[in-house]
C-alpha cells in the first residue's frame, strides 16, 4: 500500500510529535515544567478547555438520544449514532485530559474507595465514570453489527430504555455539576460569572451546544464523507437551537437583572470585553441569524449560526474557568505552549479515532454502499481529516 503524505496528515504528525514531547515533559518534569499554573492559578487551560468545554461539546449525545428516544423525533434517527460516537469519544478523551491535569493520576481510582459525597468534584467524577460506561453500551451495537452478532444486540435492545434514561439523568447531573464546582468561590470568581444559577446555566447551555454541535458535525461529516446533507434534520435542529438559545439568553438576562449587574456589564472593563464577546457570539449573532427563515432553511446559514454560537459558549467556559479569576488573582494567566500542545494532541486523537470508527463501523449505515472504488475511498479519507478536527468534542 502506498502511503500518501498530504497536508493534513503532516499537520497531524506534527501535532502528535509535539504532544508526545509535552507528555514526556508532563510525566518526567512535572506540572510546574509543562504548565504556567501556579499556586494562584491552580486550574488552568486544561480545566477551562479540556474539561469544561470538552464535556459541553459532548452534549450532543444526550440531546439527540433524548430527542429521538424520549420525544420520538423520528427525523433525527439517522444522526443518533454519530452523536453517540462523538459523545463517547469526547468523554474518553476528557478522561485522557484528566490524566494530564491531575497531579497524581495513578490514584484516580481513589474516587471509588474514599468517597466524599459533599464534594461536587466527587459528583463530577462519578458522573464521568458512569456516563462513559453508559455511552460505551450505547456505542456497542455498532461493533456488534459490524461483526453480525445478533444475540448481544438483542440484550442491549432489552436494556436500551434504561440506558437512555440513565444516560440523560447522568448528563443532567454532570453538565450542571461542572457549574456547581464554581459555587464555592463567591469571593474569587468575578460577579459577571459567579451566580447561584451556575448549574442551571451550565446545563442549559449544554443543551444548546449539543444541538449546535450536532449541526456542525453533521455538516462536516457530510462534506468529508461526500454524503447528501439531510436538510430536514438540520432544519429541525436549527429550530430547536433557536429556542434553546432564547431560553439561555433570557435566563442570563434575568440573572444579570436580578443581581443588579445590568449597569455594570455595559461599562467597558477587562471582564466586560470578554463578556461582550461571549454574549455576542453565543446569543446575539446566532439568534439574529436564525430569526431569518432564509437562514433557518439554508445548510450554510445553519452551519455558521451553530459555529458562532459554539465559539460563544466556549468563550463562556473559558471566562468562568480562567478570565473570571484574573482580577482576584491580580495577574494574567496564559497557558504555556506545552499546555496547548497536549490539548491539540488530544483533539487530534479524537478525530483520528472518529475517522477510524466511521470507516470500520456502521456509524452512517446508509452510506455503506456509497463507498465505491478504491480511488474514491482514498479521497474520502484525506478530506475527512480537517472535517473531523472538532469532532473529538475535546
Amino acid at each position: 500500500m502506498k502511503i500518501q503524505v498530504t497536508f493534513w496528515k503532516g499537520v497531524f504528525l506534527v501535532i502528535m510529535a509535539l504532544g508526545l514531547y509535552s507528555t514526556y515533559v508532563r510525566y518526567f518534569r512535572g506540572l510546574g515544567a509543562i504548565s504556567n499554573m501556579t499556586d494562584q492559578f491552580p486550574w488552568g487551560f486544561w480545566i477551562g478547555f479540556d474539561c469544561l468545554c470538552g464535556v459541553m461539546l459532548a452534549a450532543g449525545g444526550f440531546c439527540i438520544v433524548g430527542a429521538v428516544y424520549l420525544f420520538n423525533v423520528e427525523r433525527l434517527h439517522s444522526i443518533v449514532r454519530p452523536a453517540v460516537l462523538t459523545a463517547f469519544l469526547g468523554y474518553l478523551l476528557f478522561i485522557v485530559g484528566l490524566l494530564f491535569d491531575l497531579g497524581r493520576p495513578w490514584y484516580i481510582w481513589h474516587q471509588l474507595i474514599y468517597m466524599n459525597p459533599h464534594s461536587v468534584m466527587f459528583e463530577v467524577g462519578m458522573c464521568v465514570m458512569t456516563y462513559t460506561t453508559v455511552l460505551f453500551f450505547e456505542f456497542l451495537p455498532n461493533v456488534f453489527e459490524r461483526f453480525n452478532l445478533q444475540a448481544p444486540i438483542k440484550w442491549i435492545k432489552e436494556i436500551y430504555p434504561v440506558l437512555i434514561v440513565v444516560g440523560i439523568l447522568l448528563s443532567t447531573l454532570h453538565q450542571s455539576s461542572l457549574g456547581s464546582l464554581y459555587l464555592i468561590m463567591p469571593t474569587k470568581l468575578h460577579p459577571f460569572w459567579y451566580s447561584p444559577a451556575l448549574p442551571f446555566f451550565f446545563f442549559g447551555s449544554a443543551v444548546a451546544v449539543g444541538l449546535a454541535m450536532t449541526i456542525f458535525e453533521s455538516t462536516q461529516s457530510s462534506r468529508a464523507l461526500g454524503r447528501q446533507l439531510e436538510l430536514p434534520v438540520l432544519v429541525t435542529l436549527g429550530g430547536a437551537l433557536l429556542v434553546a438559545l432564547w431560553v439561555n439568553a433570557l435566563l442570563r438576562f434575568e440573572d444579570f437583572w436580578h443581581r443588579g449587574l445590568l449597569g455594570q456589564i455595559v461599562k467597558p472593563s477587562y471582564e466586560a470585553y470578554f463578556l461582550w464577546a461571549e454574549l455576542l457570539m453565543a446569543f446575539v449573532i446566532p439568534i439574529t441569524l436564525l430569526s431569518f427563515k432564509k437562514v433557518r432553511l439554508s445548510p450554510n446559514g445553519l452551519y455558521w449560526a451553530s459555529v458562532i454560537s459554539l465559539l460563544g459558549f466556549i468563550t463562556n467556559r473559558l471566562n468562568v474557568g480562567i478570565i473570571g479569576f484574573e482580577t482576584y488573582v491580580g495577574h494574567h494567566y496564559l497557558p504555556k505552549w506545552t499546555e496547548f500542545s497536549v490539548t491539540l494532541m488530544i483533539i487530534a486523537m479524537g478525530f483520528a479515532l472518529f475517522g477510524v470508527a466511521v470507516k470500520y463501523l456502521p456509524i452512517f449505515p446508509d452510506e455503506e454502499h456509497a463507498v465505491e472504488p478504491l480511488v474514491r475511498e482514498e479521497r474520502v479519507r484525506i478530506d475527512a481529516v480537517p472535517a473531523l478536527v472538532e469532532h473529538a468534542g475535546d
Partner: protein
Amino acid sequence: MSKALLYDATMCIGCKQCEQACATQNKLPYDDAVAAEPVQSEHKFTVVLTKDDKFMRRLCMHCEKPACASVCPVGALHKTKEGPVVYDVWKCIGCRYCMVACAFGQPKYEWQSLNPCVRKCIMCPDRIVAGKQTACAEICPTGATKFGDRDDLVKEAQERIRLNPSTYVPRIYGLNEVGGTCVLILSSVNPEKYGYPSATKLGETPMPEYTGRVMERIPDFIPVWSLVLGGIYWISHRRDEVAAVEAEERKKKNGSSR
C-alpha cells in the same frame, strides 16, 4: 473543645522564629533565603509579613467549616475534633480543587514534584493530641502567637480590645468570617492590608454551604428526574404501541370486510 491560635500583631516583633519552628516541625528547609521569601509556598507554610514596621502573620486559618475539606472528592482533607484541618496525602489524587476553593488561598502545591502533594499548615496535630502547643506558639518569644481553647482565646481577644481600644482595630478577624476560623487575628491595622481577603466580601456564611445547597438536593433529584424521564419514555412509546395495534386492527377489519 476546639483548639485555636490567637495572633496579636501588635505584640509581634517580626523575629520569624515561628517560621523557623514551623519549618523544623514539618521537616522543611529553612535558611536566610527562605526567611526572606515574602510569600507562602509549598516549603513555607507560615510567613511573617512586614509593612511600615508592622508585622502580620499568615497561615492556614483552620476554618470551623473548611471549604477545602468539603470539596475534596476523596476526603483527603478533614477537620479534626481538636481544630486542625489535616491532610492525608495517600488519598490525594491531585485535582487541586482545595486550592481553588480556599478563600484564603492557603493550600499550596508541589508543582515541581513528580508525585506532588498539597502543602499547608496543619496546626501540628500530633503535638496537639499529645497535649502540647503548636510549634509556632511554643517558640514565640512575645506571646504574639498564643495557643489555647478557641472559646478562651476569643474571650481574651475581646478583653484585650476592651482594655486597649486605641491599639486595636475593634474586631477579631476570624471570629465569624466564613463561619469562624481557628486562627484569630488582632491587629492595629486591617489584616486586609497584608493580603487577607476582605471580611465583608467573605461574609459569615460557611463556604461549604454554597455548594451544599445544591448537593443536598441531589438525592431527591435523582429519583424524581429518573421518573420524569422514564415517564416521558413510556408515554411516547406507549403512543407508538397503541398506534401500531390500532393499525393492525384496522388492517384486519379491512381485510375481513373485503
